[in-house]
């Protein structure tokens, strides 16, 4: 029983990471109509930006988070302006190819700048709390923080989307691009904000992964598949669905280790995704198809 509870905690931690990535993927899809294949490498680059920041100023691990989010938001907007914007008027699938190429560019940049070895934010092992009232469940402080901060970020995104003019405009554009233009909603500004949020959340996912495990140039690419699975499960183009999708995929992946070798964790995400594509391609909640 404690085992299952323990895996549930790990699953929720992983789910938090996936949710951060999936919200961005979902939003970018909603506004720009393409699956952003560089999102995993956004996570990687964000994590490394955080690493450079804390080592430059000698700060503790968690300072990597704000630095990475700000840095990656800027990088995302930059990439959009330099590359994606130029090919936006052609078919969305060209953007898909470009983002795939961008994934490799970012990854090789990370390898060039930071090298290919594993790195960590902080050395040493963190001792978990033992929660006797929960059957001796072990909970690392870092894990608790990852879950709480994700919750906070999700709530902020929610408030932004429902309470601010720009957030509502973003939902409007995702709903009906033509009508948004006709209403005078400035598309380019909304697109820019989409990249700011997408980039910042991807960076958060990257830092969470880095704090939970380690930093590696492939860390984002190998997480991309579960992130997409989460976005599809939630209904691609639906940021709220992405939260549910992220948690379901994260928990399923961790729970699966009870039954199958841990190396096949990504296969679980993939299997859920394929099942979803067959049975209900519009997502659990109806997505933009």
């Amino acid at each position, binding site marked *: 029983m404690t085992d299952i509870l323990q895996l549930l905690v790990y699953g929720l931690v992983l789910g938090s990471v996936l949710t951060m990535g999936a919200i961005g993927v979902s939003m970018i899809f909603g506004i720009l109509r393409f699956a952003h294949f560089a999102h995993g490498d956004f996570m990687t680059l964000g994590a490394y930006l955080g690493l450079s920041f804390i080592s430059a100023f000698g700060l503790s691990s968690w300072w990597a988070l704000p630095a990475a989010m700000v840095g990656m938001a800027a990088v995302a907007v930059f990439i959009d302006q330099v590359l994606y914007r130029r090919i936006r008027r052609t078919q969305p699938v060209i953007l898909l190819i470009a983002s795939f190429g961008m994934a490799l560019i970012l990854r090789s940049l990370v390898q060039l700048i930071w090298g290919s070895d594993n790195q960590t934010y902080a050395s040493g092992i963190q001792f978990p709390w033992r929660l006797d009232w929960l059957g001796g469940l072990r909970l690392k402080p870092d894990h608790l923080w990852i879950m709480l901060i994700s919750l906070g970020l999700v709530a902020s995104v929610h408030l932004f989307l429902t309470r601010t*003019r720009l957030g509502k405009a973003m939902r*409007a554009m995702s709903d*009906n691009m033509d*009508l948004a233009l006709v209403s005078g909603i400035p598309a380019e500004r909304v697109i820019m904000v989409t990249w700011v949020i997408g980039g910042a959340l991807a960076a958060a996912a990257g830092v969470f992964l880095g704090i939970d495990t380690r930093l590696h140039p492939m860390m984002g690419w190998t997480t991309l598949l579960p992130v997409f699975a989460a976005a599809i499960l939630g209904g691609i183009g639906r940021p709220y669905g992405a939260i549910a999708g992220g948690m379901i995929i994260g928990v399923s992946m961790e729970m699966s280790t009870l039954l199958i070798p841990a190396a096949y964790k990504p296969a679980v995400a993939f299997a859920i995704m394929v099942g979803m594509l067959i049975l209900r391609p519009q997502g659990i909640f109806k997505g933009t198809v």
Partner: protein
Amino acid sequence: MSSLLEAKGLYGGYGGADILQGTNLRVETDEIVVIVGPNGAGKSTAMKAVFGLLRIREGEVLYRGEAITNAKPEQMVRRGIAYVPQEKNVFPSLTVRENLEMGAYLMKGDLSKRLDKVYTLFPKLAERRRQQAGLMSGGERQMVAMGRALMIDPQLLMLDEPTAGLSPLLIDETFERIKEINAQGIGVLMVEQNAKQALSIASRGYVLATGSNRHEDTGPNLLANPEVAEMFLGG
């Protein structure tokens, strides 16, 4: 004194052959102007061209005497021109109120006065302000769409087939609302399939065929014109 809107000799289309073949349109401040014509005559195309949604290759559009040819929709809205497309004219996942807010995205300051004005015209929208627009009936959605356009306090309201797919009762009501809107001093330019009814409330009408003007006259005169009657009004 220049007209509210004047389009002269428009040529253009969706990138291929020109659909508009020298279309002319004019709307005065106090008018309801109706464009009728057979399917494929370029009625909706003409509206979109005027609003800057497709490229005008030749000809010009004047708004209060100022050239706005091929201006972006955003600039049209800033000048006080609002446009309601025929289909997909609401944001389905947004609430009624949010739909209206999006109409006034470019307007600065407090929106409550603008909202009140729309709610007065369409009391039903006030009742349903928290409902998702996508879950509403066709008639209600049309109200949301018109309400959204009115949020900028437009000088010119452009409607593309506002009664398409509505029941006869709702069609009557829609035309009543359009008359009320016009009575507030807003010029209306609309494309309509229900030619007979539309022309009966129109100040003037245009009959388009294959992208160019076939007839232009006051509403009653067009209704009385036997050629027009035979062509489009089903005798």
